């Protein structure tokens, strides 16, 4: 069962992207996975879709890294919340940072549903899948 049509991975670490994609493929959770290596690429892609309210192409889930070049995760979030969409887009922060300040800050964003500490394991992917199913339905 594929509960996610489109998943965005916004992360500059190719190994993380590679392994995460593999794990999602194996669990068969989502149809399409789009990868952006920094926040700016992602927001440039998302803005026209959000403004046009293109439900078809907008993602259901975004996995967002915090430390990235050009535009980091926080800056991405600040841009993202400026746009209103009717489609519910779930954002999970996925970061190596275990700094409680980062976790606290993530909680302050309404759009952020979860904070996952790297590495991602197959157990975590399964957990994400069931959480997404609950959130989407």
């Amino acid at each position, binding site marked *: 069962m594929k509960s996610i049509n489109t998943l965005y991975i916004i992360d500059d*670490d190719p*190994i*993380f992207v590679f392994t995460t994609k593999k*794990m999602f493929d194996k669990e068969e959770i989502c149809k399409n996975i789009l990868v952006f290596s920094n926040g700016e690429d992602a927001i440039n892609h998302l803005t026209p879709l959000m403004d046009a309210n293109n439900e078809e192409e907008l993602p259901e889930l975004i996995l967002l890294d915090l430390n990235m070049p050009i535009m980091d995760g926080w800056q991405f979030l600040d841009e993202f919340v400026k746009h209103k969409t009717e489609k519910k887009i779930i954002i999970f922060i996925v970061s190596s940072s*275990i*700094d409680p300040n980062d976790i606290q800050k993530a909680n302050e964003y309404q759009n952020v549903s979860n904070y996952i500490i790297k*590495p*991602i*394991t*197959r157990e975590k992917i399964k957990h994400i899948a069931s959480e997404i199913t609950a959130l989407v339905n």
Partner: protein
Amino acid sequence: MQFNVNDSQQVLDFIQKAAKIGTWQVLLEPYEIQWSDITREIHDVGKSYNIELEKALDFYKEGYSRDKITYYFNRCIEQGEPYDVELELVSAKGREKWVRAIGFPVLENEKCVKVQGLFQDITEKNKTQKKVALREQQFRKTFDSASIGMAIVSLEGKFIRVNQSLRNMLGYTTDEFKTFNFKDITHKEDTTLGDKKFAKLLSNEISNFQIEKRYLHKNGSIIWASLNVSLVSNEDGTPLHLVAQINDITKRKESEKKVNTLLEITKDQNSRLLNFAHIVSHNLRSHSGNLEMLLDLMKHEEPEATDNSYFPLVDTAVNNLSETVENLNQVAILNTKLHEDLTPTNLYEAINKTKESLKAHILENDGSIINNVPKHLIIDTVPAYLDSILLNFISNSIKYKKPDVAPKINISTSFTDDNQYLILKIEDNGMGIDLNRHRKKLFGMYKTFHKHKDSRGLGLFITKNQVEAIGGKIEVESEVGIGTTFLLHLKHEIN
């Protein structure tokens, strides 16, 4: 009393009384001595007292005063010389007085026939003068020999007088000082430093002020000084001059500068350490995480790769790396977050919770944990730290049990004498630690990364840091072959 200005005797009496000046005369042919009322008063003798000339001079104090008056009186008679002297007298009642005695001869045919004179009590005037002289002397001595620099400065800032200490401090001579305004030898950045306070001093808002400023030594070097300035005014409040006390604080300033430099360096190093902690927390973690994920995928996607004899070694190395990074993270987080709020927590329940989470481990080793902590005792702590502390101590006690002896852990509480701390005593019957050899290493960081069969990775180093982070401290008592007792001093709710 009706007063007739034309009666010269009445006028004379009046002047005598008002000015406390007595008169006297001595007739020589035949000898007769006459004292006015005031003169008698000064001598403390009544009107009926009969005076003899020799006795009259005996009222003068023996020694200098009597010798002087005898000399002047005789000279007056013999050579016709008048006199005006200030001498000491002892009155009939034994009171010591200062008097001014004036005598002048009355001559007939160039021969002295009588001596007339005035007599005045000047004791009060003399006392005041002496006091002033004494004070002046005291001030001068204090000023000249003071170990701090002192100066008397005019209201315009000119040096009037300087003492030896100030000359030594700044290297100028008195004559050089006298040519200076104080601003001439003040560091140019400090010339206006005391201006506002000086204005307040002149308007009597303050009686003195203190500033720290720099002077210029004759040799060009800078002297840091603590300057205290006070204003001297005359009796009607008109400012006369300033008294400055100047203390050389160059050495203190130099060490302050050193301390500040050290502080800056320490701050800088500290922030670099925090930065390093962040790198450890984030960057190392992402790499070890990637390795874990890759290996995990490999196991499932390429199962045949795990047959390679290198695979389990790589797997172990990656796991060890991840665990080390995890431990480093614990330390980093602990050091970056020292000011977490303390929460009141029930100690008895926290211990039971730890017992529960170690249940399998305890059963496996046939251990027993006796929780003797009062059930309602509340301590102030970070609950996560308390859990970690208890878990570490209890699991250590089991881990380092004596072979073939069931571990027994006794947990109890008491209070320090001043009631400031609760002492949590965790006593075991394990192998014990040779404290003579290991006390220093016991809480060292190395222990954290020391591998043990069932190591939790959280050594005593982290435990100690956690205890300190919640405002407590750890003491340890141990004997090899008997057991170990840890004493934790913790903050508790004082009811």
